[in-house]
C-alpha cells in the first residue's frame, strides 16, 4: 500500500526525473503532505470508483439505479471515453471515430454520480482515501477498475530507453487513446514489407483482438494494393478463441496477406534493428504492432492487491473473491473488469459490463444490509474477419458454478462461419452496449 512517505518519495523522484531543482521538489512534497480533501467527508455511503472503462462506468450507473441515495464518485484520468471494442473496425475505416467516442458528462449527469477527471496518485486503504493531484477523496467502499498496464519489463528488464522507444515507435494499442491513433496512421501509411503483430503470453485484454486486428490491417493492405504481409507471432499452439473462423478468413479472404505463426514465444525484441527473436524463428519487420504481456492496471499494484503465486511472486492480476469480486484482504474494496485473476473470464468490454452490474448489486445490497447471492457474468464477443463485404464470427460464453468443486465452468457457444448477418449483429452489440453505459 502506498504511504504518505511513499507519496513524498514518488513526488521527489518524479520531480528529479523532470530535472527540477530541490526547492520545487520540496514544494511539491509539501503540497502532498498538506493535501486537503477534494470533497467533504461522506455523509452516508460513498463509493469511489477508480477507472471509467466498461466495468467502472457500469458499476457507477447501476449503483445509482440500485439506490439513488448512494454517493457515487467515478474518477477517470482520460477526459473522454474511447472504445477499444470495435476499434479494429475503425482501423479499417469501417466505422467512424464518433461511433467509438463518448463523453463522461452525459451518464454522470443523467444518473447522478460525480465524475472527476483526474489521475489517482495514491491509495491509503487504512484511511480509506484515494489521492488525486487535486486532493484526496474518502470512501466507504472502493471499486478498482483501472484496466490493464503493459509489462514491457518482460522484454526489456529495466531498460527504460528501450521501453520508451517501443511505446513510441510500435504502440500496442490495447489501452485507449493516442496509441490507437498512432497505429491507424502507421497502417494507412504502410507501403511495403512485413507488418508484425505480437500476441501476448498468458492472460491479456480481449483474447481475439490481435487476430481480428490482423484481418482489419490486411483489409487496408488489400484495399490499398500494398505489397505487404501481416505476420502474427503467437506463443500459443493455435489460434484461440474462434480459431477455425480466423483461420478460414486468413486462408480464404486474406490469403498471402496474413501469415499466422504459432509457438512463437518471444525471446528477444530489438525495436531499433527491427528484429524479433522467437522460439519459432527470427523475424525482421518493416513496421509492427508490438503488444507486450499485460498485467492488472497500476492502481491494483498501488493498493497492494495483486495475487501471489505459490512462490510468493506476483501473478500480475488482482487477488479477489471469484464470486463477489471483493478483495481478499480488504472487504471494502472491489476489483472488477480486466484486473481480476483466478477466474476463467476473458478480459473484455462485455465481461466488464456484465461484472459491473453484479458488483453494483453486491455493494448496494451490502449497504442495505441485505444478503445477495451473486450471479455469474456472461460474455459475447464478435470479431470482424472480412472488411468487404463485412463479415463476422462470434463467441458467447455463459458460466455455471460447480458447488462441489468450487469451480466456475464456462459454457461457450461459437459460430466460426463468418457472415454478413453477424457483422450487422456486431454493431448492434456495440450500439446497445454504448447505450447501456452512456445513454
Amino acid at each position, binding site marked *: 500500500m502506498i504511504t504518505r512517505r511513499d507519496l513524498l518519495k514518488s513526488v521527489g523522484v518524479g520531480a528529479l526525473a523532470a530535472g527540477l531543482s530541490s526547492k520545487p521538489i520540496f514544494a511539491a512534497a509539501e503540497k502532498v503532505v498538506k493535501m486537503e480533501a477534494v470533497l467533504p467527508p461522506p455523509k452516508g455511503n460513498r463509493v469511489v470508483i477508480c477507472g471509467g472503462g466498461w466495468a467502472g462506468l457500469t458499476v457507477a450507473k447501476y449503483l445509482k439505479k440500485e439506490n439513488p441515495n448512494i454517493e457515487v464518485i467515478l474518477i477517470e484520468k482520460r477526459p473522454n471515453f474511447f472504445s477499444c471494442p470495435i476499434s479494429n473496425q475503425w482501423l479499417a475505416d469501417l466505422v467512424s471515430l464518433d461511433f467509438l467516442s463518448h463523453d463522461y458528462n452525459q451518464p454522470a449527469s443523467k444518473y447522478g454520480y460525480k465524475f472527476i477527471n483526474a489521475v489517482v496518485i495514491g491509495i491509503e486503504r487504512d484511511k480509506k482515501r484515494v489521492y488525486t493531484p487535486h486532493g484526496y477523496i474518502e470512501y466507504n467502499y472502493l471499486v478498482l477498475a483501472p484496466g490493464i498496464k503493459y509489462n514491457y519489463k518482460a522484454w526489456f528488464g529495466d531498460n527504460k530507453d528501450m521501453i520508451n522507444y517501443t511505446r513510441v515507435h510500435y504502440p500496442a494499442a490495447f489501452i485507449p487513446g493516442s496509441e490507437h491513433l498512432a497505429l491507424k496512421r502507421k497502417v494507412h501509411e504502410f507501403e511495403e514489407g512485413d507488418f508484425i503483430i505480437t500476441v501476448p503470453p498468458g492472460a491479456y485484454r480481449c483474447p481475439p483482438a490481435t487476430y481480428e486486428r490482423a484481418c482489419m490491417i490486411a483489409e487496408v493492405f488489400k484495399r490499398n494494393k500494398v505489397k505487404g504481409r501481416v505476420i502474427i507471432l503467437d506463443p500459443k499452439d493455435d489460434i484461440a478463441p474462434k480459431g477455425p473462423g480466423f483461420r478460414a478468413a486468413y486462408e480464404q479472404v486474406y490469403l498471402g496477406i496474413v501469415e499466422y505463426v504459432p509457438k512463437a514465444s518471444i525471446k528477444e525484441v530489438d525495436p531499433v534493428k527491427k528484429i524479433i527473436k522467437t522460439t519459432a524463428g527470427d523475424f525482421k519487420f518493416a513496421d509492427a504492432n508490438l503488444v507486450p504481456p499485460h498485467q492488472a492496471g497500476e492502481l491494483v499494484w498501488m493498493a497492494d492487491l495483486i495475487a501471489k503465486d505459490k512462490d510468493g511472486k506476483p501473478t500480475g492480476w488482482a487477488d479477489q473473491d471469484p464470486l463477489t469480486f471483493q478483495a481478499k484482504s480488504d472487504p471494502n474494496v472491489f476489483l472488477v473488469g480486466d484486473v481480476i485473476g483466478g477466474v476463467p473470464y476473458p478480459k473484455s468490454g*462485455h465481461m466488464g459490463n*456484465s461484472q459491473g452490474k453484479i458488483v453494483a448489486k453486491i455493494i448496494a445490497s451490502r449497504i442495505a444490509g441485505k444478503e445477495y447471492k451473486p450471479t455469474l457474468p*456472461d460474455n*459475447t464477443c464478435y470479431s470482424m474477419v472480412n472488411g468487404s463485404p463485412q463479415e463476422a464470427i*462470434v463467441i*458467447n460464453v*455463459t458460466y455455471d458454478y460447480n458447488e462441489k468443486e468450487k469451480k466456475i465452468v464456462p459454457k461457450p*457457444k*461459437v*459460430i466460426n*462461419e463468418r457472415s454478413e*448477418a*453477424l457483422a*450487422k*449483429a456486431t454493431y*448492434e*452489440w456495440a450500439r*446497445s*452496449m454504448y*447505450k*447501456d453505459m452512456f*445513454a
Partner: protein
Amino acid sequence: MDRRDFIKTCGTVAVASMLDASIFSNLLASQQDGMLKTYKKALLVKEDGSPLKEEDLKPHNNYIFFYPFVSTPCYLLNLDQEIKPVEIKLKDGLGYLWPGGVGSKKSIVAYSAICAHQWSYPTKDYSFINYYPPDKPSETTKKAGIIQCCAHLGLYDPKEGAKVLDGPPEVPLASIVLQEENGQFYAVGVLGKDQFDQFFDNYKADLRQQYGSTAKAKELVEKCIVMEMDKYVKSVIRC
C-alpha cells in the same frame, strides 16, 4: 399464490375472457403483483384493415404489430400447440400469472419485441431479436422454438411466458395480454416487467427521427396492424 389458487384463477380467467374485457382485466390484475398494465383495447387487424382471424396466422411464423404505443413492437406467434398458463417468478421476489395462449387451440401468444437485456428491438432496417421456429434452430445455440436476441444472445421461451432460458436477460420479455371475442383478437394490456421507460430513454434520438417527436412515438394505438416480420424488416438477422 399456491398451485390450487393458480389453477383456479387460470380457469376463471379463461372463462371471463370470453365474456368481458374489464372482468378479465380486473381478475387478472388482482393476481399480478402490480405487473399488469392495461392500455387501450386495440383490435388486431390485417394490412388491409380487416380483423385478423386465427386462420390468418401461419404456425411458427413471426408476425409483428405495435402495442401499446405506436413505436413499441410486439411479436405475435401461433405456436401450433396448446400453450398452458405459467406462473412466472422473478428474481426480485415478485411474480405473475401468465395466462397462456389464446385462440381455439390456445396456441396464440404475443410478447413485447424489446429485449429485456439491453432493449434491442426490430427496426425497419434490422431485427436482431427473432423467433426461431422448430425447423430453423439457431446456429449459435442450436435451440429452436425460442426467441433469441443476437445482440448479446439472450434466449426466451415463448411457450413459457417468455421465461429466460439463457444469456444475460434477468427478466422475461413482457407479454401482451390478448383477448379473443367472436373470432377477433384484441390486445388489452402488458403483463410483466415492460422495458418501455428504458426503451424510450435509450432510443430517444432514433424515435424522434422515425416518428417526428417523442410525444408522437408515445401515442397509444387504436388498432394493431399485424404483418409478417419479413415484410416489415429489410434484414432479419439470425445467428
